[in-house]
């Protein structure tokens, strides 16, 4: 996210304050930066590049970057920086570039074989075969909603400081067909699309999504909340999640490594965005969406961002040590989504956690690490210290205590509990994950739990 933001701030200084400004980026982001400045109308934005990494280098090593060559231009770094500030500009530099990009409704007719190749070569697929979105198939899909095909559903982009793309109900239906969805899944897919939270987030951290569906629609469309719910054993679970991914990459302007996707390793969860239904019937607690203000008879989808998970079995005599060890070993900023088989939920219930909130509060109070270790973490160091410096609590307090003092690993709103599974094994996981930080949503107030019913 940082390289696009640096580009944005530089362009602001140039255009709104009249200050000639050079952006310095890590070399791995060159292609991304080229794209960002182009789609912001300033393809000749002043920029220079240094080798990677920057974060772990000593002052002497960083001095070496300053004294060395720009790995993108091949020329001395500082010479390039100073030249960018002083070289004479031409009319194109001073004018910028304006252009329009059209998206046709229909593609040129072609054979199915050629179309499959076109979709794959244009990076419109997940590199698995898709269902070609013919007019007849899309029309059939649109029967799944009462909303007009040309209604704007929302906006999406791979990361901040990239342009927001609009998309319609029909565009969502096109991608739903491609994913192999049935028309009755469309309200769920539209709800996910309307969140504006992309399932193809560009972050270098390789985040993916988890989607949890609640309410009556689970049974209406045959979703799985029992045996194998997180695996490839149900069409609705599979196709809804796949559609979320495909529509994200296609309506937002792409998800191409080096250009609109920067995940260092990628994430296998992205194939179907870990989509499943909560097992409300077997859970001893209220459903996730009820916990977050919806009625039990309302249908919702919640979008989480996840990185990975730690799996275990059973709630045994040393469950407290187990929870502290698993959650304490995760990264603080990313949160925890506890995904519990109903057997495990019942075990926690029998220990006295008769509400999800009690388990969440216990975790907040008891899973603690030294403050110095908490702040040493890459993401908290780079994303939370600003809040601490601005006096925002509890980060301000966490930033002022001695490094050896134990502080909570997670705040309560960054701990989530979901029940799913078929009770053949008391398994559970802590997924390193959270709802999207409000600072990174299209609007800070955009909800993470979205009504499906409004898209019927």
């Amino acid at each position: 996210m940082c390289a696009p933001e640096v580009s944005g701030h530089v362009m602001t200084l140039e255009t709104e304050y009249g200050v000639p400004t050079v952006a310095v980026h890590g070399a791995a982001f060159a292609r991304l930066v080229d794209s960002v400045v182009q789609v912001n109308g300033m393809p000749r934005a002043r920029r220079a590049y240094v080798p990677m990494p920057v974060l772990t280098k000593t002052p002497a090593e960083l001095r070496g970057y300053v004294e060395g060559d720009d790995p993108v231009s091949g020329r001395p770094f500082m010479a390039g920086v100073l030249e960018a500030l002083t070289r004479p500009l031409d009319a194109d530099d001073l004018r910028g570039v304006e252009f329009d990009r059209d998206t046709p409704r229909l593609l040129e007719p072609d054979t199915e074989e050629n179309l499959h190749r076109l979709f794959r070569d244009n990076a419109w697929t997940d590199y698995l075969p898709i269902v070609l979105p013919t007019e007849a198939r899309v029309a059939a899909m649109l029967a799944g909603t009462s909303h007009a095909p040309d209604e704007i559903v929302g906006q999406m982009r791979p990361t901040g400081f990239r342009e927001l793309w609009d998309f319609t109900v029909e565009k969502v239906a096109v991608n739903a067909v491609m994913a192999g969805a049935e028309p009755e899944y469309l309200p769920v897919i539209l709800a996910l699309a309307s969140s504006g939270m992309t399932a193809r987030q560009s972050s270098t951290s390789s985040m993916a999504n988890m989607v949890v569906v609640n309410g009556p629609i689970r049974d209406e469309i045959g979703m799985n909340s029992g045996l194998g719910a997180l695996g490839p054993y149900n069409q609705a679970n599979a196709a809804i999640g796949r559609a979320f991914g495909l529509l994200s990459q296609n309506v937002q302007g792409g998800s191409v490594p080096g250009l609109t996707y920067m995940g260092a390793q990628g994430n296998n969860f992205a194939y179907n965005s870990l989509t499943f239904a909560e097992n409300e019937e077997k859970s001893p607690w209220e459903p996730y969406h009820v916990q977050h203000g919806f009625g039990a008879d309302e249908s919702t989808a919640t979008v989480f961002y996840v990185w990975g998970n730690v799996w275990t079995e059973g709630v045994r005599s040393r469950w407290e040590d187990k929870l502290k060890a698993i959650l304490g070993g995760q990264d603080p900023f990313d949160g925890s989504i506890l995904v519990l088989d109903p057997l495990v939920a019942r075990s926690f219930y029998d220990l006295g956690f008769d509400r999800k909130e009690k388990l969440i509060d216990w975790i907040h109070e008891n899973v603690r690490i030294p403050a110095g270790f908490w702040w040493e973490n890459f993401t908290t160091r780079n994303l939370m210290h600003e809040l601490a410096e601005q006096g925002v609590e509890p980060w301000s307090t966490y930033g002022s205590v001695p490094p050896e003092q134990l502080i909570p690993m997670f705040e309560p709103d960054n701990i989530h509990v979901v029940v799913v599974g078929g009770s053949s094994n008391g398994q559970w996981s802590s997924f390193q994950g959270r709802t999207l930080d409000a600072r990174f949503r299209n609007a800070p107030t955009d909800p993470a739990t979205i009504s499906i019913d409004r898209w019927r």
Partner: protein
Amino acid sequence: MAKVTVLDPRGYAPKITARGLAPQLDGLDGKTVYLVDVGWENCDVFMHQMQGWLGEHEPRVRTEVVRWRDQHEPDPQLCERIRHDGDAAILGVGL
């Protein structure tokens, strides 16, 4: 082989508005350049290394290392200060 017609899966891109560069500096002598640390880890160290290099190689350039308040938000106060008191800026590091 028979041909089929399919729909384009892509969304609608916004129109791109042209944005031009600010005029270049007429040389470096006597100029003030702000070195802006955007707040990512070690970027302050990098900016100080740039400052050191400029002090040795371009001693007639005045530099000041400053910090962008929150990399995710505009910083109009800093931008105004740079416009009022400076001639150019270098921001980094985008990672």
